[in-house]
C-alpha cells in the first residue's frame, strides 16, 4: 500500500500544491478576492497531507527493508535495530531534505490552523511565502535528491549505517534541530508579507514573536542535544568543536535570539521595526545556508560541489533566489516603513538595542571565523583552520558585557529609565556577585573563566532578583507576594527563567574549562589518582553484541575509601564496517561528571595492559541543563495569557479587514 511509488507521487503532488499555494493567495491578496484567499489554508493543509504520506512511505520502505530503493540500500541493513531503521530515514542527505520539507509543511499548516486570528490577507501572504520556499525545495528534492529512486537489480542486503550514528541522542537530534531551523521560516514569511503590505505595527510584532520563540526553543534544544551527543559519543571529553556544522546552528541561534528580543520592542513600543524585519530575514537566511551549504559540505570542500554539480548549482540558485529576493524586497520596501516610538538610551528599549548590537557582533565574529578558511583556500590556496583559540579570544570579550547588561535590562522600565534606582534594588545582588567573583578568582585558573563565572552568577542572581522584586518578596506578607506572583504575566517568569538558564549554561562552560584529564596505560588491578578520586581498573572482558563484539572494562571509582561508582567503558568492533567505536562511561552527580574511556589493548596476551582516559569534568551537566531551562523559559512565555487571550478580539477585526474593500 505505502509503496515508494506512492511516496514519490505524493511528493510530486505536494510540489504542485506548493506551487499553487505560492501563487493563488498572492493573486487573491492583490485582487482582494476572498475565494482565493480562503484557498490558502486549505492548500497548506493539503500539502502537509501529501508530505506526510510521502514521508510515511519512506519510513515504510526502511522498516520493511525494501532494498530496491537506492536510499535504503545505501543507509540500512537487515540487522539494523528497528529504532534506527526509522530514525535512519533522516540520517542521510535525501531523507533529511524530505524531513526538512515535511517540517516546513507542518509550519505552513500550523499558520493555517492557528492563524485564524490573523488578518486574512496577512495570513494568505504568509502562507504563500511558505509555499514559495516549499515549492523550491520540493523541486530540489524531486530533481536532484530523490529519496525514492529505485535500484536494479535489488541487492539482498543494504550497506548499513555508520555505527557512530546508531545512538538515540543522534536519532532525535536532527528533527529537533530542523524544527528550529525551519521554524524561523515563519517569522521570515511574516517579514516578507509585511514588506509586501508595507506595514509593520505592534500587532505584527505580537504575531511574529510566538513563532520566533517557538523556533528558538527548538533550536536551543537541538544545539544542546548535538553538543551532548558529541560529549558522550565521540569520547574526547569535549562538547563543542567550533566545527562549521556546529557554527551553522549557532549563527541563526544568535540572530534568532536578537530577533525575539527586538520583536518585543516592536510589540510594546512600535520601534525598531525595520531592524526586526531585517533580523527575521537574516535568521532564516542563515538557517537555510547553514543547513544546505555547510551540511552538504559544499562550503567545506570544493570537491563535494564538483562531485555533484547539479545539486550544488540548484541549491546555490535556490538560496540566491530566496535570500537575494528577500533582501531586494527589503531594500525597496523598508524605507516606506515608518519608524515610531521615541525612547531614551537608558530604558528597556535601550537595553534591548544593546543586546541586539552585542549578539550581532558575536554573530559577525562567528560568521567570519567560519567563512574565512573556505575563502582563504578558494582565493589564495592556503589551507588554514580557525578553531577554539580564535573563537575563545573573540567571543568571550564580547559576551561578557552582554551578560552585564542582561542582568540590568529586564529591570529597566520602558521608554525612559534611571539607572540609580535599579542599582539600589540590586545592591545585594552586586555584593553576592562580587563575592562569587572573588571566590572564582581564587578557585578558577585564568582571567576569562573567572570573569565568566562572575558574569554567570550575576545573570542568575539578577533574574531571581527581578522576580522577587516584582512580587515584593520579604517586603510584604508571603500571601501578598503569592498574590502578586499570580498576577504577574507568565512572560516575566519566562524571561527570568531563560536568563537564569543562560547563566547556568555559562557557569557550566566556565567551570568546565577547569576540567582535568589523565591518560594512562595500566594492567588490571592498578589504581590511578585524578581529582581526588581513586580509579581502579578491576577487569576487562570480551562480550559479543548483536552486530559487534565488545571489550568492556570495569573501573571502580572511590573517594577516601568510599565507593563512588562502578564504571563500564567499552570498545565495540563492528565487523560489517571494520569500525571501532568507544562507549564512554559517565557517572554524574549533577555537580561533576566522572568520564572514563577505554582505549586499546597493548602488551602481551598473558600480561595485557589497557589504555584508559580519565576525565573529571566539573559542572559539565549544567551546560545542557541551562539550555533546557532556556527552552522551558521560552515555552513558559509562549503560554502567556497575553498571547492566548488577546486572540479572539483580533479575530473580529481580522474578519472586518478581509470583508472591507
Amino acid at each position, binding site marked *: 500500500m505505502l509503496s515508494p511509488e506512492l511516496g514519490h507521487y505524493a511528493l510530486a503532488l505536494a510540489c504542485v500544491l506548493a506551487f499553487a499555494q505560492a501563487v493563488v493567495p498572492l493573486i487573491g491578496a492583490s485582487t482582494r478576492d476572498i475565494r482565493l484567499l480562503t484557498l490558502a489554508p486549505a492548500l497548506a493543509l493539503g500539502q502537509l497531507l501529501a508530505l506526510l504520506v510521502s514521508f510515511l512511505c519512506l519510513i515504510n520502505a526502511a522498516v520493511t527493508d525494501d532494498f530496491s530503493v537506492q536510499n535504503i540500500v545505501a543507509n540500512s541493513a537487515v540487522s539494523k535495530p528497528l529504532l534506527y531503521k526509522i530514525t535512519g530515514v533522516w540520517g542521510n542527505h535525501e531523507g533529511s531534505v524530505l524531513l526538512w520539507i515535511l517540517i516546513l509543511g507542518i509550519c505552513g499548516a500550523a499558520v493555517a490552523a492557528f492563524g485564524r486570528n490573523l488578518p486574512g490577507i496577512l495570513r494568505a501572504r504568509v502562507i504563500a511565502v511558505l509555499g514559495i520556499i516549499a515549492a523550491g525545495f520540493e523541486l530540489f528534492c524531486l530533481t536532484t535528491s530523490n529519496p525514492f529512486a529505485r535500484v536494479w537489480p535489488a541487492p539482498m542486503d543494504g550497506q548499513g549505517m555508520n555505527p557512530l550514528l546508531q545512538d538515540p541522542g543522534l536519532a532525535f537530534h536532527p528533527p529537533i534541530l530542523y524544527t528550529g531551523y525551519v521554524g524561523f521560516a515563519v517569522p521570515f514569511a511574516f517579514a516578507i508579507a509585511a514588506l509586501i503590505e508595507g506595514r509593520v505595527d505592534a500587532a505584527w510584532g505580537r504575531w511574529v514573536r510566538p513563532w520566533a520563540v517557538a523556533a528558538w526553543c527548538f533550536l536551543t534544544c537541538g544545539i544542546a542535544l548535538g553538543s551532548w551527543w558529541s560529549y558522550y559519543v565521540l569520547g574526547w571529553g569535549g562538547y563543542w568543536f567550533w566545527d562549521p556544522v556546529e557554527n551553522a546552528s549557532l549563527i541563526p541561534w544568535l540572530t534568532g535570539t536578537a530577533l525575539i528580543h527586538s520583536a518585543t520592542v516592536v510589540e510594546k513600543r512600535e520601534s525598531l521595526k525595520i531592524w526586526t524585519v531585517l533580523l527575521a530575514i537574516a535568521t532564516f537566511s542563515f538557517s537555510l545556508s547553514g543547513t544546505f551549504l555547510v551540511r552538504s559540505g559544499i562550503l567545506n570542500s570544493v570537491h563535494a560541489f564538483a562531485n555533484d554539480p547539479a545539486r550544488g548549482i540548484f541549491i546555490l540558485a535556490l538560496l540566491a533566489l530566496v535570500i537575494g529576493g528577500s533582501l531586494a524586497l527589503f531594500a525597496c520596501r523598508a524605507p516606506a516603513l515608518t519608524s515610531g516610538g521615541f*525612547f531614551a*538610551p537608558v530604558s528597556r528599549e535601550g537595553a534591548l538595542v544593546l543586546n541586539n548590537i552585542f549578539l550581532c557582533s*558575536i554573530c559577525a565574529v562567528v560568521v*567570519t571565523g567560519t567563512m574565512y578558511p573556505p575563502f582563504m583556500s578558494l582565493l589564495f590556496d*592556503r*589551507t588554514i*583552520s580557525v578553531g577554539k583559540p580564535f573563537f575563545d579570544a573573540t567571543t568571550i570579550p564580547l559576551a561578557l558585557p552582554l551578560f552585564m547588561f542582561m542582568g540590568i535590562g529586564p529591570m529597566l522600565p520602558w521608554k525612559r529609565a534611571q539607572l540609580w534606582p535599579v542599582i539600589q534594588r540590586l545592591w545585594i545582588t552586586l555584593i553576592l556577585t562580587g563575592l562569587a567573583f572573588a571566590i572564582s578568582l581564587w578557585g578558577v585558573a585564568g582571567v576569562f573563566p573567572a570573569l565568566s563565572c562572575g558574569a554567570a552568577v550575576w545573570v542568575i542572581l539578577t533574574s531571581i532578583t527581578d522576580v522577587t522584586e516584582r512580587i515584593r518578596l520579604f517586603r510584604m506578607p508571603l500571601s501578598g507576594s503569592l498574590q502578586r506572583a499570580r498576577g504577574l504575566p507568565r512572560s516575566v517568569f519566562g524571561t527570568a527563567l531563560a536568563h537564569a538558564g543562560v547563566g547556568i549554561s555559562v557557569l557550566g562552560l566556565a567551570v568546565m574549562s577547569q576540567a582535568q584529564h589523565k*591518560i594512562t*596505560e595500566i594492567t588490571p588491578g592498578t589504581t590511578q589518582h585524578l581529582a581526588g578520586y581513586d580509579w581502579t581498573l578491576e577487569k576487562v572482558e570480551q562480550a559479543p553484541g548483536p552486530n559487534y563484539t565488545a571489550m568492556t572494562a570495569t573501573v571502580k571509582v572511590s573517594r577516601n575509601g568510599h565507593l563512588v561508582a562502578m564504571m563500564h567503558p567499552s570498545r565495540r568492533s563492528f565487523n560489517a564496517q571494520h569500525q571501532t567505536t568507544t562507549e564512554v562511561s559517565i557517572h554524574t552527580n549533577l555537580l561533576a561528571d566522572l568520564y572514563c574511556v577505554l582505549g586499546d589493548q597493548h602488551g602481551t596476551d598473558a600480561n595485557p595492559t589497557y589504555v584508559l*582516559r580519565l576525565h573529571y569534568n566539573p559542572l559539565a551537566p549544567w551546560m545542557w541543563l541551562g539550555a533546557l531551562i532556556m527552552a522551558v523559559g521560552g515555552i513558559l512565555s509562549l503560554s502567556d495569557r497575553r498571547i492566548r487571550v488577546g486572540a479572539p478580539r483580533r479575530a473580529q477585526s481580522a474578519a472586518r479587514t478581509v470583508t472591507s474593500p
Partner: protein
Amino acid sequence: MTRKTRRLWLVIICVACFGTAAALMLRAFSSDIVFFVTPSQLTQNAQPADRTVKLGGMVVANSVKREKHGDTPVSSFEVTDGQSAVTVNYEGVLPDLFREGQSVVAIGSMKNGIFIASEVLAKHDETYMPKEVAEALKKSGKWDPRFGPPPDAASWNSMTVKDAKKSLLPPPAPAAQ
C-alpha cells in the same frame, strides 16, 4: 534628548561594538589561526617553536611504535607526504580510525625535530582522504586523481614522480592489510 543625539548615541555604540569585534578578530587572526602544513613544508621551512600547526599526511606503514613513559602511553609514528617524513610523538589514545598507511591530521608544534602532537585526528573512513592531504599529494606530483585512486602509501617515500605516473596507469592493487 533629541532624535538626532539619540541616533548619534546609537551610531557611537554600534561603531564601538563592531570596532571591538573587528579588533579582536584581527588580533586573533594573527595569533590563533592554525595553518595546515605538509611534512615537506615542515622540514624545509623551520617553524617557530611555539607556533601550533596542523600536520597532514599519510601514516608510513610499520612506523607506529608504542611506548610507556611511566603509566602514560606514548605513540610515535611517521607522517609522510611522499617527499619527506616527520616523526610525530603523541601522548594519549590514538583515534579509532587511525591506521597505518592511511591519512592522518596531527595538531601540535615542532620540538627538536620531532613533532609533538596535542591532538591526532583520523576522522574519516578508510576510503576517504582529507582534502588537505589529497591537495598535498597532488602538489608533490605523486597522485593525479584523474588517473585513479591514490597509490599505496608504503611506497611513497621511495617513489619518484615518474614511478607514480607509471604505476597509476593500471589501477594499483589495494594495500594489503
